[in-house]
């Protein structure tokens, strides 16, 4: 244990306060009795009850989850394919340009991505709705998935695939039965990343959504413009809780896996 230092303690407090104080205030006021956001009038959970009655929010939440699920799934399939081809194809003319083009949307301002997609959908005469948001989210989430999967594939031992071919697999069978199971953790984390990116996207969704397909971030944003209500605080608190549970579960699982792996290795040495 290192010695307690006032400087460290202060720095730590300020650092965490900076990160979490706003959220803490939001959580506290979600349990406020009063309709006024900044005046405390006693503890109550009534806003959570009212939230469940609010069909607009529930509809928007459902749309958001649908969009996030489909777009992250499509993005994972396309992003994994792109990563696989970029890593495996070997050097060819224009490879640098090609891989640059896959990653460009990462740094493209969202407003531009959103606007260009909007113009594109109008040009091809596609009505805006859930489908257009899914397409738009797939486009920008795909490159994130591709980055995650590429970094795993680069360290992937190529001879595993060759061994599969050697033992009678067709190239597709080798990918399905050897490569995919081994890179699965990267594919799953790519999917989760795409899912969360889609969940909280406001800019691109507002360009590509239609009247019947409002996502939760759009709904919250437009509601806040009419004034912050404790209902929104309650909704946000639920979202914070979900994210926290997700992060903690993920880290517990990964810790359990690494402990098991270490135990296995020790057992292997002793046998």
């Amino acid at each position, binding site marked *: 244990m290192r010695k307690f230092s006032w400087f460290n303690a202060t720095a730590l407090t300020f650092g965490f306060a900076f990160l979490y104080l706003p959220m803490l205030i939001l959580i506290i006021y979600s349990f406020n009795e009063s309709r006024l956001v900044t005046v405390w009038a006693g503890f109550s959970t009534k806003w959570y009850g009212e939230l469940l009655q609010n069909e607009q929010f529930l509809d928007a939440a459902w749309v958001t989850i649908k969009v996030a699920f489909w777009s992250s799934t499509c993005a994972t399939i396309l992003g994994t394919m792109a990563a696989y081809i970029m890593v495996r194809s070997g050097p060819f003319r224009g490879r640098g340009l090609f891989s640059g083009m896959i990653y460009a949307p990462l740094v493209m301002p969202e407003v531009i991505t959103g606007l260009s997609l909007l113009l594109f959908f109008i040009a091809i005469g596609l009505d805006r709705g859930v489908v257009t948001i899914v397409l738009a989210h797939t486009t920008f989430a795909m490159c994130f998935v591709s980055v995650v999967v590429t970094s795993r594939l680069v360290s992937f*031992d190529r*001879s*595993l695939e*060759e*061994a*599969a*071919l*050697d*033992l*009678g*697999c*067709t190239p597709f*069978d080798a990918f399905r039965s*050897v490569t995919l*199971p*081994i890179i699965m953790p990267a594919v799953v984390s790519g999917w989760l990343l795409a899912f969360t990116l889609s969940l909280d996207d406001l800019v691109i969704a507002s360009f590509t959504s239609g009247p019947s397909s409002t996502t939760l971030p759009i709904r919250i944003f437009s509601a806040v413009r009419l004034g912050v209500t404790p209902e929104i605080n309650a909704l946000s608190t639920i979202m914070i809780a979900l994210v926290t549970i997700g992060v903690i579960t993920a880290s517990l699982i990964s810790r359990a896996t690494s402990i098991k*792996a270490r135990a*296995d*290795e020790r*057992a*292997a*040495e002793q*046998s």
Partner: protein
Amino acid sequence: MAQPRPDTVFAPWDEPDAKPLIQFKNVTKRFGDFTAIDDLTLDIYAQEFFALLGPSGCGKTTLMRMLGGFETPTEGTILLDGVDIGPIPPNERPVNMMFQSYALFPHLTVWDNIAFGLKRSDMPKDQIGDRVEKMLKLTQLGKFAKRKPHQISGGQRQRVALARSLAKAPKLLLLDEPLGALDKKLRNETQFELMDIQETTGTTFVIVTHDQEEAMTVASRVAVMTEGKLAQVATPDQIYEAPNSTYVADFIGDVNLIEGTVEVQAKGAKPTDVSIKWSPTETPIDATSDTPPPAASTVTFAIRPEKVAISNERPEAANVMEGKILDIAYLGNISTYHVEVAPGLIIKAQATNNRRISRRNLTWEDHVYLSWTDTAGVVLTE
């Protein structure tokens, strides 16, 4: 060294009618500007344990990968059982490979790793179990069947890789530096296991290695490679005792190389006698050669250190040289003496330490005699 069995000598390469299993015909492989394999022709026979030996970058791995189907020749053809295997993809070749990194599938158990290839063959499902059990027994892995590759030791992984590649009973098994990741003791044990398994299964093995001792131990024939070409293809004893070039002599084991010119044969000498003048003042070296080079040609005389005797008194021998001990390398069972016989010429002589160190009478700066018979060395023209 692999010992030829006295009753039935296995040497199909000496029989003119024997049909080779693998034939490389003028095979060239280029990667861009780099020529990895240069117009190579080679025959390998069924049931051979054939070693490809050479320093890294000599093309031995490329040669093996062409047999596996992971590289295609730029020019020339490779025949397996008389069939051109150039256009056949790896999954349709009756060839299996054991990879240097073992390439075990980490998400599958030992059992499933071994069954992997069988499940993709036309073997009926009910026979797969029996075959896997047989392989587990052959490689003594029975009690590890349910473990994953990261739950077993390096030596066990090596055996899983071997079992997996043998499971489909391939016509030809390729082994890429199979023992490279094992420590020396385990490697020596495993070499003998490999030889046993090769004999039991009767499979043709082609092994790639940079370890000459390993190649000498396991192989029926060794191909020494350099810069995409074959330097010599012969049995281990021929490679060691009768290298065909200074490259091979120098690559395999320790050797003394002495350059000189061939003298005109003396009257009464046998036609195989060769006398080599290596210094203007010293006595020439007497040697023999089945194909004596013409007089005045430049040759290299190669002799292994263990064939050079060292003594304090002048012995009676065909070749005797005087010198001074510069260095002694003590290796326990043997000692190597570095003896300067002429300015700048150091000859290594090896002696078995059959006496305790305190009882030996050779030490630094001693004046000694080196001697060897006229048939102990070889005369090399390349």
